[in-house]
């Protein structure tokens, strides 16, 4: 990608759209928000879009014939169209969920139905003893625990690609791991700890050769780089709105039409039905089949505004901006031998997520020192506990970026970090 990073002036202008960035913490220190990987900040345009929905159109979409409901339905469906297009999909290929976690559970629960009598083709989504689900050791709990539960309940076996010490997928055993027994390959596009960008296209191709369904956790790619679901070759793709400048409480599940068509419903209730009798019901076509109850229409409208905002910048430029910040941080950390970076230390197939460990100091204590300087990073296992075990650390500190992050903020992190050795009395190897 040869796009230019954002200029200092551009970022400064952008920051004006995020009122929270002007606030101070811990007794007057300017907020340095380096936790966008957990959740991003929201531009005024997104907040305005939501408020506009509430103050002009608010009513239940797909549930009325009156003027307000017509307008709310149109706004909701226009949001679906724009957000689906953002990941390369058609309007009816996008299901709204509350977050990526629900999107992934929607898929694992489909397999628990053991095929649904009212959904032709749903027999495809069954798992039995002897079948296998393949994940990776770097998965977020959201793309691991649901598969564990699914395997526990169906008798299928969970297998996983291990992670190399450098934080890449170890594919050396691919021929024994990805076989005719594999019914599902579920993996992260980008690791939320290591920043590693996985070779999705290649793996999806291999998985399809053995007839497996490919489920992509795109939580950490969709907000940060151009993502085109069809050309990645995956079958289903989950993402979260709140990580991509959108409101909380909304996520997405993109699915190829043929796949969604055959997928049994998950949550059942109003508006996902075709006919209901006391004895039994039949179900609507996707995406409605998966959207039971009054949907988060205001949040969909807000997320569409977020997508518009990102597209106005250009996702290749968003990516270039964050890559520049990542490089700056990796360079700075490389000069501090008492810091160990988890994950790739170069920029090849790497995204803007930098986790690190100060040897001899617990990540929570590191984070506390940074926080005291106004620098907000995430500490802990970041919902990727098995990955931390594999890398032989209990926890790490993690800096993540957004379009509003500045090089000066990276430097502020490094400066604050330099207080750590003194406070906790560890050797820095300097002097």
């Amino acid at each position, binding site marked *: 990608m040869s796009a230019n990073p954002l200029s200092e002036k551009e970022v400064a202008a952008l920051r004006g759209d995020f009122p929270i960035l002007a606030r101070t913490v811990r007794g007057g220190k300017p907020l340095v928000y380096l936790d966008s990987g957990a959740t991003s900040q929201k531009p005024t345009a997104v907040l305005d879009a939501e408020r506009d929905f509430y103050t002009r159109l608010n009513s239940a979409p*797909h*549930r*009325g*014939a009156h003027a307000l*409901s*017509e307008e709310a*339905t*149109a706004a909701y*469906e226009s949001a679906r169209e724009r957000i689906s297009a953002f990941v390369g999909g058609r309007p*009816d290929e996008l299901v709204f969920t509350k977050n990526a976690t629900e999107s992934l559970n929607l898929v694992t629960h489909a397999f628990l139905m053991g095929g649904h009598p009212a959904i032709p083709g749903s027999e495809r989504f069954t798992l039995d003893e002897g079948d296998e689900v393949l994940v990776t050791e770097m998965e977020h709990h959201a793309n691991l625990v649901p598969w564990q539960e699914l395997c526990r309940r169906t008798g299928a076996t969970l297998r996983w690609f291990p992670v190399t010490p450098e934080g890449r997928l170890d594919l050396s055993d691919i021929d024994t791991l990805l076989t005719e027994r594999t019914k599902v390959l579920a993996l992260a596009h980008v690791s939320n700890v290591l920043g590693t960008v996985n070779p999705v296209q290649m793996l999806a191709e291999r998985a399809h050769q053995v007839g497996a369904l490919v489920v992509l956790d795109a939580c950490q790619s969709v907000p940060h780089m151009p993502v085109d679901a069809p050309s990645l070759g995956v079958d289903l793709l989950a993402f979260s709105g709140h990580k991509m400048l959108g409101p909380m409480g909304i996520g997405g599940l993109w699915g190829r039409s043929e796949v969604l068509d055959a997928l049994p419903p998950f949550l059942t209730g109003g508006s996902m*039905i*075709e*006919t209901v009798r006391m004895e039994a019901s039949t179900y*609507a*076509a996707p995406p*409605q089949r998966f959207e039971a109850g009054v949907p988060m229409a205001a949040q969909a409208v807000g997320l569409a505004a977020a997508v518009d905002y990102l597209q106005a910048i250009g996702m290749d430029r968003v990516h270039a901006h964050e890559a520049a910040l990542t490089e700056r941080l990796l360079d700075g950390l490389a000069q501090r031998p008492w810091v160990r970076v988890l994950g790739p230390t170069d920029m090849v197939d790497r995204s803007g997520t930098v986790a690190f460990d100060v040897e001899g100091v617990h990540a929570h204590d590191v984070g506390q020192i940074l926080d005291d300087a106004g620098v907000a990073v995430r500490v802990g296992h970041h919902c990727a506990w098995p990955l931390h075990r594999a890398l032989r650390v209990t926890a790490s500190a993690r800096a993540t970026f957004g379009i509003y992050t500045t090089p000066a903020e990276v430097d502020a992190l490094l400066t604050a970090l330099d207080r750590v050795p003194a406070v906790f009395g560890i050797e820095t190897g300097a002097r």
Partner: protein
Amino acid sequence: MDLYQELILEHSKRPHRMGLREPFDAEVHHVNPTCGDEVTLRVDVEDGTVKDISYDALGCSISVASTSVLATEVTGESVEEALEVFKHYRAMLMSKGKDPGDEEQIGDGVAFSGVSQYPARVKCALLGWSAFTDALAQAGVDISTISSDAAAPTA
């Protein structure tokens, strides 16, 4: 309100060609899930001509009247012509008021042009027509000239 044209009210009160008749090549049952309305519709196709459309409809004035107009306009036409009428009729309904409909092409179907301003009612005006194209398909007619989303518009 442009919606309730005299012609619609008349057809809804006294639907033409109603009832389920023999012989027929295919019978379908369509439901509008948002309101619970239903139509059962039969087609009789002979030598590429729509010989009969018979139906039983339970629904709002728009859905009953549009099914009645369908039966009136299309019976006796060739299947090609019938599908053409459908395409023009649907285009008008989907146009959000931009396409007033052409009487040359869709006959009394133009009475439904006001529906396009009320997205929640577009399904009503298509209920019988979607059943019809579905029935044609089940009777072995090639309906690929109308796009695949035709049968199930998401209004």
